[in-house]
């Protein structure tokens, strides 16, 4: 019944009315999903903890205090200290900055590359499509982790300084991430371009650039939003795995993954679980929250599942 109302409404003001009502509806539905809302709040909390938390910590990140090394959690060090006497909680917060930034930034890069190439591919079809899609197929055929391992090895061989490594990791992750996105966007564009409103842009004689950026890509936004969310989860997992193996972010720059490197030391693994369980748990909780939020978004955006 509501669709009828929307239809009439839409006919009068075609472009502007549609999107706010879609986002508003989505938000209304998302608010009803308790798990997704808890996840959203947890993620906001993680961001605050990582980016604001360190200012409240009495321990400076890299201050080492050998006399205080390897202490279990206590009132002054909530999560204990590591082999150099650094406060684990402070390091965890600083690592959060790095890991979250890498996750978000690589997602943005993947989205930009994926959406652009996907849109171009679906819009022009023909040779352009063939080349881009084969390239995507090829990149998708090499399993993600081995591909990242090779790139990690290249990174080590080129002796990239520790502080630049994280930027290159972002690029690496988006190299692995864009093909799936491009494929998805292309599929959407292919079905969108058959719809009447695209024929209208044809009649109006709009430029290709306008058609792609003002009419096609905005219509894929809901889907992109969901995939982008899930992509952040994947990136955080990949980054942590790489860093755990010593091929991603390397010390002294902390990341959740390289903090877990402590578990590679037998004594730390058996006797000092506070060194590796908190970062592991943090990765897990963050990734779970992102996945739940993404799933909630998908349900909220998909009117087919509405009941």
């Amino acid at each position, binding site marked *: *019944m*509501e669709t*009828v109302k929307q239809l009439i409404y839409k006919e009068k003001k075609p472009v502007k009315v549609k999107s706010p009502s879609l986002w508003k509806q989505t938000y209304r539905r998302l608010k009803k999903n308790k798990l997704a809302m808890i996840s959203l709040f947890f993620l906001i909390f993680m961001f605050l903890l990582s980016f604001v938390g360190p200012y409240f910590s009495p321990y400076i990140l890299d201050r080492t205090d050998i006399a205080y090394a390897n202490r279990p959690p206590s009132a002054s060090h909530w999560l204990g200290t590591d082999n150099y006497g650094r406060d684990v909680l402070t390091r965890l917060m600083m690592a959060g900055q790095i890991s979250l930034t890498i996750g978000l930034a690589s997602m943005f890069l993947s989205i930009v590359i994926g959406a652009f190439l996907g849109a171009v591919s679906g819009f022009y079809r023909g040779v352009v499509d063939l080349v881009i899609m084969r390239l995507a197929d090829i990149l998708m055929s090499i399993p993600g982790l081995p591909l990242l391992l090779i790139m990690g090895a290249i990174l080590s061989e080129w002796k990239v300084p520790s502080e630049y490594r994280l930027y290159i990791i972002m690029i690496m992750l988006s190299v692995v991430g864009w093909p799936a996105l491009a494929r998805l966007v292309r599929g959407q564009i292919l079905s969108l371009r058959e719809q009447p409103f695209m024929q209208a842009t044809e009649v109006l004689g709009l430029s290709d650039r306008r058609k792609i950026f003002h009419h096609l890509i905005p219509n894929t936004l809901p889907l992109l939003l969901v995939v982008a969310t899930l992509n952040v989860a994947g990136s955080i997992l990949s980054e942590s795995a790489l860093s755990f193996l010593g091929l991603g972010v390397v010390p002294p720059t902390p990341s959740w993954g390289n903090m877990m490197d402590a578990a590679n030391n037998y004594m730390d693994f058996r006797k000092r679980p506070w060194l590796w369980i908190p970062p592991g748990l943090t990765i897990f909780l963050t990734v779970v929250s992102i996945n739940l939020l993404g799933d909630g978004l998908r349900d909220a955006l998909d009117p087919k599942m*509405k*009941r």
Partner: protein
Amino acid sequence: MLSEALLEVKNLETNFYTEEGVVKAVNNVSFSIGEQETVCIVGESGCGKSITSLSIMQLIPESGKIENGEVNFAGRNLLEMSKKEINRLRGNDIGMIFQEPMTSLNPVYTIGQQMIEPLQEHLLLSRKDAYKKAQELITLLGIPNSEKIINMYPHELSGGMLQRIMIGIAISCNPRLIIADEPTTALDVTIQAQILDILRDIKKELNTSILLITHDLGVVAEMADYVIVMYAGKIVERGPVMEMYTNPQHPYTKGLLKAKPLIGERKESLFTIAGQVPNLAELSDSCYFADRCEHRMDICLKKHPELKETSANHSVSCYLYEGEAVR
């Protein structure tokens, strides 16, 4: 029409629970179907006619619920039966045909595999006998090459063919009642006539009753013995087919008949009923047709009129036909 009622629906209420609220899709609907009688339910899309038929079979989607009422079939209330008993009835005593033949058959099984299922389940035929019977049914329905058709998949056949197969499945166990939910809507006009002919022949041969759901008044005129007009989940008028065409009473029925173009009669523009079907989740106390009605009175906005008999077998739900006192 004096024959014993085979199916008797009493005060049926089916609601759907959606985000926008409770949708009263079927709102206190009562009617009956006699032996060998054809009853048509007409109305615009979304008026609850399909849901009425699905409620009888208890096949409504998960978000819907039958809240109230009785569905008596051959003297037994279907709504009080166990799942097992219902299953014994479905496809056996009551056959059903749906609107979309293209999607109503399972794409991964052959026609034959799908036709023999009720035969094996209800008539306990062997696989071989069931296949033989299925082949006979296909031939009976006027499809040549039955031995080839039986091994084909649904996507290889046309909509008209598939609807015949659906009819074949529905009649395979000699049902006493066939429910056909818009069986011709999705088909080409020429095919529509063929399907209706088949239904009429079957009725004669098998002595079944038919409940036909449609929005096409042409179909009603051809098939019905008795007509029920539904609007916004309620019956607004019901009566024998001749009565309905010669003496329609409810303004909505009149409008429907006027809106139907007649061959040989040229008009400047076709008649339309102004306005829209109300949102079933936001119904007020008024007569649901009130804001589209050209005879609206004050009382129409206060209370929905009751369905009252005006002549033999003919009832209408409108204040225009209630006593002077109300007016």
